[in-house]
């Protein structure tokens, strides 16, 4: 049987590969969406944080002998702490201003972080091996699925839906949503909004670092790994509806699949397909797929 001129087996394997990439998009765009939602800041430094996550994993392994599993915890914590510091020192001053300023500041931050890493580690990138326990692959019949990639999907989805649950279904989540909207009033009701905001930024950034650790064994760990991805992730967030949690998760996964299919049908166009989808979606639904207008 053939679909789109491909045997079903090939199609199935391409869909799966697309889903794997979609998992990265989902985790990254989720963090971005949370940060935008609560801080009203378009975090241009998100790619840099993702890159830092991967580098922390690499440094932990090569310099301190800390394994992948350790890195999976350490990197988000360290990068999250870095995020907390950034929020406290810099972003805090921008909340009352237009989006534009947050964007500019985080863009500047991204330049700084990337520049420093480039200076320290060169541009070519470093290799990070797949952890022992996840090496090898699973022959699925239609394809050979590297175990590690299967793990990526599982880990990413767990984190995404865990986050969604926390935000939509718990009291803490209600504080977050309320604090997003009108921090002053929520604070006047007795909730410590500044801390809430700081922690949220830290958490969003930690998600990026988590994605970075997940990515380290798959991609070369390089200072530019984040900036290349960032603009696509932005598109994902916008298509999903700015600040919508579920929107960013589903759109991330969905776009991964659509992009994967494009790579097969018209590879040259795979870098542009996200934007085509974006124009179409925004034309039909001005606030994105899941956005509140």
């Amino acid at each position, binding site marked *: 049987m053939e679909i789109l001129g491909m045997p079903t087996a090939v199609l199935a394997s391409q869909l799966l590969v697309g889903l794997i990439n979609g998992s990265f998009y989902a985790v990254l765009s989720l963090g971005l969406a949370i940060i935008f939602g609560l801080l009203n800041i378009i975090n241009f430094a998100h790619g840099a944080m993702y890159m830092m996550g991967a580098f922390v994993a690499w440094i932990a392994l090569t310099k301190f002998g800390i394994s992948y599993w350790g890195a999976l915890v350490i990197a988000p914590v360290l990068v999250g702490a870095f995020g907390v510091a950034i929020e406290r020192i810099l972003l805090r001053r921008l909340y009352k201003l237009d989006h534009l300023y947050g964007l500019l500041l985080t863009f500047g931050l991204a330049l700084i972080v990337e520049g420093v890493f480039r200076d320290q580690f060169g541009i070519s990138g470093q290799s990070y091996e797949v952890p022992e326990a996840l090496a090898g692959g699973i022959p699925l019949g239609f394809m050979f699925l590297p175990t590690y990639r299967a793990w990526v999907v599982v880990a990413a989805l767990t984190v995404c839906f865990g986050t969604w649950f926390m935000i939509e279904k718990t009291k803490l989540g209600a504080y977050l949503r309320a604090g997003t909207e009108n921090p002053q*009033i*929520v604070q006047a009701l*007795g*909730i410590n909004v500044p801390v809430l905001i700081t922690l949220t930024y830290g958490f969003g950034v930690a998600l990026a670092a988590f994605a970075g650790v997940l990515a380290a064994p798959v991609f070369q760990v390089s200072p530019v790994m984040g900036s290349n991805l960032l603009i696509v992730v932005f598109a994902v967030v916008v298509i999903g509806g700015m600040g919508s949690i579920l929107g960013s998760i589903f759109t991330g996964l969905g776009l991964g699949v659509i992009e994967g299919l494009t790579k097969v049908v018209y590879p040259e166009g795979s870098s542009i397909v996200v934007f085509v989808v974006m124009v179409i979606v925004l034309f039909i639904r001005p606030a994105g797929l899941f956005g509140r207008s």
Partner: protein
Amino acid sequence: MTSAFQPQPEFLRLTDVHAFYGESHVLHGIDLTVHKGECVTLLGRNGSGRSTSLKSIMGLVGRRTGSIMLNGNQIIDEATHRIARRGVGYCPEERAILASLSTEENLTLAPVVASGGMSVDEIYDMFPNLKERRNSPGTKLSGGEQQMLAMARILRTGAKLLLLDEITEGLAPVIVKRLGEVITVLKQRGYTIVLVEQNFRFAAPLADRHYVLEHGELVATIPREELPEKMDWLQQTLGV
């Protein structure tokens, strides 16, 4: 200082409070004292600084100086959420209902800061509209319903000092009447209330004392007893 023998201990005292928004200096040294269980109003024209006085207590202005004592504690340097946790409930004039939460979530958002607050059921009895629309997103409520919700959500927390900014604004007379009854009950329960009102007919029977503001300064203090004789003057200054 407060003494245990006084029947009405002093609950809130503002001394020489100045408030600023950015570079504009709005309050020019306000002094006022409210005792436990009292209800006072702040009167004045539009822009005279009544809302700003309430915001200063909550720490919601750009900058403030002077002294604000709450129940014997200096709170001028405290963060807003701490002040709220000391048992101050604030109902802002713009209502500030949260769109991303449902009506009921809005109602239950604020943490309970002390015992003795109303239960959700009591509140629904008081405002049946809210019960009916409990699952609707907060800002999809009508203007008046939002006003009820803004008031209701601070009744739940057990806060003993209520700062109420124009709570009758946009409410139908039926509801205004009910609110008047509620405030009377609250007073009896020992709540301390600072009211900012345009609706003098509503405020006059409730208040123990009236403070009159003009251009950010306190120009008169009128105890309830003196109200009849000062009515003419008030009419002139405020146009009521």
